[in-house]
């Protein structure tokens, strides 16, 4: 039984952006296909069209020569196309079983049997009767996969499936996907991670700015060639010169604890570390292991005991973020549009937000707009933010530009320590490179960084020392030269 899926001349236009520009592709079962591209290249739009979530403006889709009309996700399901979305489509407060039965036509008993068979066959083990919000990201993904498998699909689409997984979970996923492929399911794998394409796929299609750039056999490609196709220019590789750092201690955390009242937050237990001047401490971990709590404690969003944080020989554990900034700390939170900037406010207004006291932005309670605008323009030009309109609302900046603006806003006060949390999350390669260069520059100026990130490659590239956070506990602090991504993966999974 062969499955052939054809996409013919698909176009989807959004106001101000062509998401898919006349894309044609053909897939055959028995192979694993990669759809590669940066954020915003149009991969997600294309697969959402395949799964009926988005209706294309033009173009046709053929499954085994039948022209499909995919007007809703139901149509895709009926035509045996299954999709696992990047952001899980699960109902967090419902149990696993309820999540699975909701779109199934089976009776409870027969569905349970089906699920059991699938779980046995692929070695999944998930408690069906607990709410989904108690599952790890890897388990949630398995629930999504089971949901597709129940319908015995001909096509299985995976949209950036590894962004939430550990190394181990990723290799488990790859094994499963290879098994599915051997059983005749056509697999389309969407990603921007080149390593994964090389590891898993047979053929690769590269997209850039809504257009299909190339289709090729994986054997004819390597990481560099794919990267260049994806970005459309030759990328320079960034490397940090690892120099001997000073032994001049800047920040010291002693016996820091945080117990949350919210059962869905992670408690921090006995955190101890210190960072010297000019040093970058990386904190690795799977998301949800206490990183956001740690960030909040360090930034002062959550206040702790006065002497648990010593910064520049001052005890500052009980100070709020504004007061900590006066001691020359700076922060770049994970969520750019919710925590770091206010989406509805203009660029220059957002620039003023982190600087209430020590600047000359305000006179007697009145806003000194000219000063702020001047300052904003300087940030925009110094940090390469791709706009010249400082009156623009922040929500209209792309992720990369917004991140540059935020980092710029923090750095222009020349702080001694920058604490950032997933600074390159969801950015394209160009912006990531720029942010990485900037972070390296900070260290070269003998200033320090605490980098909390879920991206191990980023951590290995930028950190001088690395520690892993797991269930609110930090591992011992290691020199980054002694660490490999495999070792980090094991620690991230909770082993010693």
């Amino acid at each position, binding site marked *: 039984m062969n499955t052939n899926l054809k996409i013919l001349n698909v176009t989807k236009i959004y106001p101000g952006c062509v998401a898919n520009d006349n894309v044609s592709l053909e897939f055959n079962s028995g192979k694993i296909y990669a759809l590669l591209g940066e954020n915003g290249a149009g991969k997600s739009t294309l697969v959402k069209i395949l*799964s*009926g*979530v*988005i*209706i294309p403006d033009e173009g046709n889709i053929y499954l085994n020569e039948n022209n499909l009309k995919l007007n*809703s*996700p*139901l149509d895709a*399901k009926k035509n045996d196309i299954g999709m696992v*979305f990047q952001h*899980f*489509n*699960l*109902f*967090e*407060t*419902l149990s696993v079983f*309820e*999540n699975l*039965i*909701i*779109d199934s036509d089976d009776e409870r008993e027969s569905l349970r049997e089906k699920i059991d068979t699938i779980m046995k066959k692929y070695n999944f083990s998930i408690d069906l009767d607990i*709410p989904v*919000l108690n599952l790890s990201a890897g388990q949630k993904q398995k629930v999504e996969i089971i949901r597709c498998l129940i319908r015995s699909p001909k096509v299985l689409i995976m949209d950036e499936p590894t962004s939430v997984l550990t190394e181990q979970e990723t290799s488990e996923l790859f094994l499963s996907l290879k098994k599915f492929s051997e059983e005749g399911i056509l697999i389309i794998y969407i990603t921007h991670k080149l390593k994964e394409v090389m590891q898993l796929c047979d053929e690769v299609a590269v997209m850039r700015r809504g257009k299909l750039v190339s289709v090729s056999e994986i054997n004819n490609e390597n990481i560099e060639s794919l990267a260049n196709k994806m970005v459309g220019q030759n990328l320079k590789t960034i490397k940090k010169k690892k120099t001997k750092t000073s032994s001049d201690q800047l920040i010291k955390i002693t016996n820091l604890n945080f117990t949350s*009242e*919210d*059962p*869905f937050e992670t408690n921090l237990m006995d955190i101890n570390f210190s960072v010297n001047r000019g040093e970058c401490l990386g904190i690795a971990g799977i998301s949800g292991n206490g990183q956001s709590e740690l960030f909040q404690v360090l930034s002062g969003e959550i206040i702790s005991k006065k002497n648990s944080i010593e910064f520049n020989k001052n005890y500052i554990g009980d100070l709020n973020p504004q007061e900590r900034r006066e001691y020359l700390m700076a922060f770049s939170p994970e969520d750019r549009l919710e925590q770091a900037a206010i989406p509805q406010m203009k660029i220059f207004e957002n620039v003023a937000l982190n600087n209430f006291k020590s600047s000359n932005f305000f006179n007697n309670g009145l806003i000194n707009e000219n000063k702020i605008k001047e300052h904003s323009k300087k940030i925009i030009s110094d940090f390469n933010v791709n706009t010249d309109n400082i009156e623009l609302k922040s929500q209209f900046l792309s992720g990369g530009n917004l991140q540059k603006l935020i980092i710029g806003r923090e750095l222009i006060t020349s702080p001694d320590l920058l604490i950032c949390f997933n600074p390159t999350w969801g950015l394209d390669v160009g912006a990531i490179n720029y942010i990485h260069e900037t972070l390296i520059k900070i260290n070269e100026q003998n200033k320090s960084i605490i980098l909390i990130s879920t991206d191990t490659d980023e951590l290995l590239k930028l950190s001088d020392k690395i520690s892993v956070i797991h269930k609110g506990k930090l591992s011992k602090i290691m020199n980054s030269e002694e660490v490999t991504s495999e070792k980090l993966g094991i620690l991230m999974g909770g082993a010693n």
Partner: protein
Amino acid sequence: MIIDINFIGLIIASIMASAVPLILASCGELITERSGVLNLGVEGMMIIGAISGFALMTVTGSLIIAVFGAMLAGVLISTIFAFLTQTLITNHVATGLALTIFGIGISAMIGKNFVGIPGKEFPVLFEGLKDTIPLFGPILFGHSIVFYFAFALPFITSYFLKKTKIGLIVRAVGDSPESASNQGINVRLVRYACILYGGAMSGLAGAYLSMIYTPQWIENMTGGRGWIALALVVFSTWNPIKILIGAMIFGGLTIIQFHMQAIGVRIPVQFLTALPYIVTIIVLVVISRDSRKIRLSTPSSLGKSFHKDN
């Protein structure tokens, strides 16, 4: 002083009767909110139900037409809310408040002609069994069909949400409309249905007030019960059984404070009148302290507009 045991039964029965409109309206609103829609128009829908029921009864003389007409009136007015919030994507809170103001106003206008007209007697069931069992006789027997329906409703609602597929879909939509939509569930349709159901139950609650509880029309006769029903839903953490408990406490305190006022207890009247509101909320807050359960039963998308982009 000898207290007749049947007298206690009668007091309990009167407490239950005063809880009926709260249970009906809360259970309806609970379904609406479980689908992620916050309808603050309960008071307005209730009073529309009250005047429609009473007017239809007076005009047609048929109790059946009156009861179903009141429910239909609730459905119609909630359709306005549904159209505005689901089709035109207006803000839930503002639209709901407008609905209440609209309902109170229009009911007063229609009701002008019905002030002072006596109501009809509503048939009660099992009247003859009232004296057969001491204490429980008056509690269990001799009530209207709406009364029995109201006390069954929390259990039906709970069963519906937990055990049926449609209940599951309602919860799923309230949890994440985006996911539901991506799963091929018609979010707008589900939400429309839940809003209309909430309207029907509020209408019925209103009809109970004007046709059974105090069979007459008085302007603004719901007297804030719609707001209490809303509060019950939230403070019961979207749990129908706790709504029943809350409604009973509220009804009980309302009746008891009347009696206390009658006996002449030396506590300021204002405090006594406020008592049911305060105590009900305190009790519900105390019995709903488990934050894990709150998280699991709170509809995550409550009050947020869902707009499917294509």
